[in-house]
């Protein structure tokens, strides 16, 4: 261990930077995503599975009885909801408490809200990413969104907003203390 030799740096405007803080915390969560693929792959698999199964089983029944009904278009938002419902950083927050890292974050001059918002922003980004394969499959099997670009874009904000309340809700199973 050698000496700390550099001069004391100038502190720059700290503390009142909630957007920058939340972005930094969200960035950390997204960087960790490749190591947490087990949280992403099952929801996307389940969503795609039921999208295909439901269309396969209900297409003939519904389209032969309801004139003009498109089961594929009907199932698209359902599949997106199934996929993104499981997205929540609550588990990561629990791990942060368990590993003691939440204490490290709480010791910084960052506002508590920025820490929570940072996790929620990461959830939104992950939910939007999960929507992509579902949309690709939907377009590949012939789903048409007649509302044009706004209609095609709408699944992203909708799916992104969906898991946010879950992120913000404290889990009853959250441990009260960190690992010793």
């Amino acid at each position: 261990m050698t000496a700390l030799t550099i001069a004391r740096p100038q502190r720059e405007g700290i503390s009142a930077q909630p957007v920058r803080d939340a972005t930094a915390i969200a960035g950390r969560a997204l960087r960790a995503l490749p190591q947490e693929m087990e949280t992403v792959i099952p929801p996307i698999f389940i969503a795609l599975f039921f999208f295909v199964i439901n269309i396969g089983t209900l297409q003939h029944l519904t389209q032969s009885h309801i004139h003009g009904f498109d089961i594929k278009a009907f199932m698209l938002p359902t599949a997106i909801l199934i996929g993104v419902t499981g997205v929540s950083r609550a588990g990561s927050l629990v791990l942060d408490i368990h590993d003691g890292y939440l204490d490290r974050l709480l010791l910084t001059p960052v506002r508590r809200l920025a820490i929570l918002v940072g996790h929620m922003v990461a959830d939104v980004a992950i939910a939007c990413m999960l929507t992509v394969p579902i949309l690709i499959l939907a377009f590949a099997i012939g789903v048409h969104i007649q509302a044009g670009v706004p209609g095609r874009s709408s699944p992203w904000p909708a799916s992104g907003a969906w898991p946010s309340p879950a992120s913000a809700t404290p889990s009853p199973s959250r441990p009260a203390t960190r690992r010793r």
Partner: protein
Amino acid sequence: MTHISVRPRDADREPPAIRTEGLVRAFDGAVAVDHLDLDIRRGEIYGFLGPNGAGKSTTVRVLCTLLAPTGGRAVVAGHDVAAEPERVRLRIGVALQDVALDPKQTGVELLRLQGRLYGLSRTAIADRLEALTRLIDIGDALGRPIRTYSGGMKRRLDLAAALVHEPEILFLDEPTTGLDPVSRARVWEEVRRLNAELGMTIFLTTQYLEEADELADRVGIINGGRLVAEGAPDELKRRVGNDVIVARFGGPGDAARAEAARRRVEAVPGVRGVDTRGDELVVTAADGAATIGAVAVALDAVAPVRHLTLRTPTLDDVFLELTGNHIQLDDRQEEVA
């Protein structure tokens, strides 16, 4: 004792780095910190010594704004911990008792994020990373996920994370627990250096008596949430006496012999105090070398003594004198990183 601490010249005229007035912290009625009054000067290394459950870590968590005080007041770096916690956090660095790291990040990622959260620019973060890399000396491991680090490497990275923003006050909560002797010596060296070169105020809690003795300008001894003594280590040890003679009898039934011996030794000229601890007799004397012969003769008349030792007092003797108990060490101190 080698002591390299350098205190800024104006330290006595400056407002204190840490001041608590009647600080109380209770958990569901159980009082962990009981009307604690501290006054720690800027540039000082303050050792906070006490056994498990004495209230050391709770005090640190209150001073670091992780816990709100139940009563009283604490001012750190000129700001009230309850009223201005963000201003306090900006000026302090903390290495808690258990490392506070994210195992999924690499060391570099963790330090960069710390820098960003303290509002440092990219250039400043790069400069700090370079300096801290030299400081913690873990080589290429800094680019690896933290989950692959050894206990000692994690402890050093945790210290680096506490120093990213170069705080005015550094809280070290049992920083060498679990470290091997070599790593412990390195941490001691760095604590001295941070204090000497940067004038950093260091609040150090420890169960290691020798750690407080080696590093601290002043030591506060806490027991049951209350400050039972405070002063320079030498000053505290002088309260016990100049020298300590320890006689160990050993063997069954020797606690009773020690008690019998106590009455005889108390009559020996030069003896200031005698205490029995199990089969041990602890004698404090103004001049141990001059008194040990007479003590040996007095003991020989009662029972054969297995070991007779003359030593200078330790902070454990001070603690024993003040509380009637030895400092109980945490099991984890025996772990080697």
